[in-house]
């Protein structure tokens, strides 16, 4: 029905490039079509988003790191139900190893003896270490410091580190600035999931069970708008790209370089893809970031 008042939905947005579907849905009017008026709160990082979800201050987190979301679900089951996931692969570049220009290295294995940085948080740090281990580098073969994402380009420019594990769009920014180059991207698929073709569903859009139960109709319509945005991005990525520019922390000069992600609605995931997700979750458990083994299917919600 065309009720005069639109349904309001409280959405927490961490304006990374991975929250692109939100901005596409908003700007292309997909929410409006569904008679939904999102109320956006900018919330930096997973903990803030999860806290806001637990207290019911937001119903949707536009982008929530999978391991963090799953962990939250252990603490409070059902608090973060993924309706869509973003896959990172060697093609859909997100996480990658980089080295400073001038440093001699062609493969990850060449990072031996170097000073490395990592994206912050135990998940990122342990992932980086895991990948390095898969490449034959043990603890002590290198030093690694976690560093706030906002400092990655700085640190490469200043030469504080030789290289490290970083995320987009920072990688593109370094490359554009001419201070660093990519060694290898899509490393989670290849080294953690053991298959370069595997989808590493590192993050996604999550909604609260409360939202699903209390306002099933609104939640459904929200998911449909999201789904439409995902379709749009997948069909015309170059068109969608321009929404990165002023909405997310993506500088204009790298908007054209930053690769898209494999945006997928939960309902469209194949069993292999579900298995990939499960595998990522199990990896999280193995490094202690997800304290216990989980059945991921319980925390994806298919609209």
């Amino acid at each position, binding site marked *: 029905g065309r009720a005069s008042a639109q349904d309001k939905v409280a959405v927490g947005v961490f304006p990374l490039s991975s929250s692109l579907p939100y901005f596409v849905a908003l700007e292309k009017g997909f929410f409006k079509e569904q008679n939904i008026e999102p109320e956006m709160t900018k919330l930096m990082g997973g903990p803030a988003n999860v806290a806001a979800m637990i207290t019911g201050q937001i119903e949707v987190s536009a982008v929530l790191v999978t391991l963090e979301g799953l962990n939250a679900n252990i603490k409070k089951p059902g608090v973060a139900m993924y309706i869509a996931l973003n896959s990172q692969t060697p093609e859909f570049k997100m996480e990658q190893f980089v080295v400073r220009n001038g440093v001699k290295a062609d493969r990850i294995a060449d990072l031996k003896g170097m000073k490395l940085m990592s994206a912050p948080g135990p998940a990122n740090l342990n992932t980086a270490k895991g990948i390095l281990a898969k490449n034959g580098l043990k603890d002590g073969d290198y030093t690694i410091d976690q560093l706030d994402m906002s400092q990655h380009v700085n640190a490469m420019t*200043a030469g504080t580190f030789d290289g490290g594990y970083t995320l987009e769009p920072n990688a593109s920014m370094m490359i554009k600035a001419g201070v660093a180059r990519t060694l290898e991207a899509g490393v989670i698929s290849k080294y953690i999931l053991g298959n370069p073709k595997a989808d590493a569903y590192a993050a996604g859009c999550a909604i609260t069970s409360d939202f699903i139960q209390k306002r099933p109709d609104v939640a459904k319509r929200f998911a449909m708008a999201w789904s439409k945005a995902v379709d749009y991005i997948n069909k015309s990525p170059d068109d969608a790209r321009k929404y990165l520019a002023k909405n997310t922390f993506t500088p204009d000069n790298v908007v054209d370089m930053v690769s898209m992600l494999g945006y997928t609605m939960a309902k469209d995931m194949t069993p292999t893809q579900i298995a990939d997700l499960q595998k990522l979750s199990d990896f999280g458990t193995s490094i202690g970031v997800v304290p216990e083994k989980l059945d991921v299917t319980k925390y994806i919600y298919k609209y």
Partner: protein
Amino acid sequence: MNWKRLEVLLPLVGVVVLLAVWSVVTWLRIVDPVLLPSPAATFKALWTGMFHGKLGVDFVKTVERTIYSTIIAAIVAIPLGILLGSSERLYRSVEFLIDFFRSTPASAMFPLFLVLFGVGDRTKIFVAAFGAALVILFNVAYGVMNARKTRILAAKVMGASRLRVLWDVMLLESMPATFVGLRNGVSLALVIVVVAEMFIGSVDGLGQRVFEAQQMFEMPDMYAAIFAAGALGYGLNLLFLTIERRFVHWSGK
């Protein structure tokens, strides 16, 4: 005569020193100019941001939040500080709480404040007010405790009630310390507001501008926002200084 006139310019010395050092550092490329842009580039960014961009709006927003939180902090902390300072025993009994929270980073408390006050403006204002109140409280209480005893005795012997002594004597005896506290407090409130805007997330404010510029590696924009924050801090301090000068005429006499 002429000297007196020149004194008005004294505060500029600091600005000039800052700009000079900064210019030299960028000039000699001690720091890569990509990381630390020249003053000229920064001021261009400041100018454009202030008058043609969003920086002006962000500035006003941060001013508002800082002022609200300082006012809340002052209203709560000054009377409480006098009360606590008036009895050393009372103060010792809550000292743990004061020192505890003063030493806890506001940013570590964000999750808690988020839960208590929500994700909106309120959280930022309250967390800043909380931090500033502790500092003001601490300074005021010490001002009262270090006040000259003779004046308190004089008021007592004139029959002034405990409350009167608090209000008429201790409040005024502690004025110099109170203003030190207020100036510490307003700076801290500004710092916390900016940090909250950076790390809780916000759609406006200088902190959000710094964070965004940082994320997007727009160094001139970032330093322009930092400069705006610092200048704002100086301005707010100057405000309190002016009030103090007008008001606390007897200090040191």
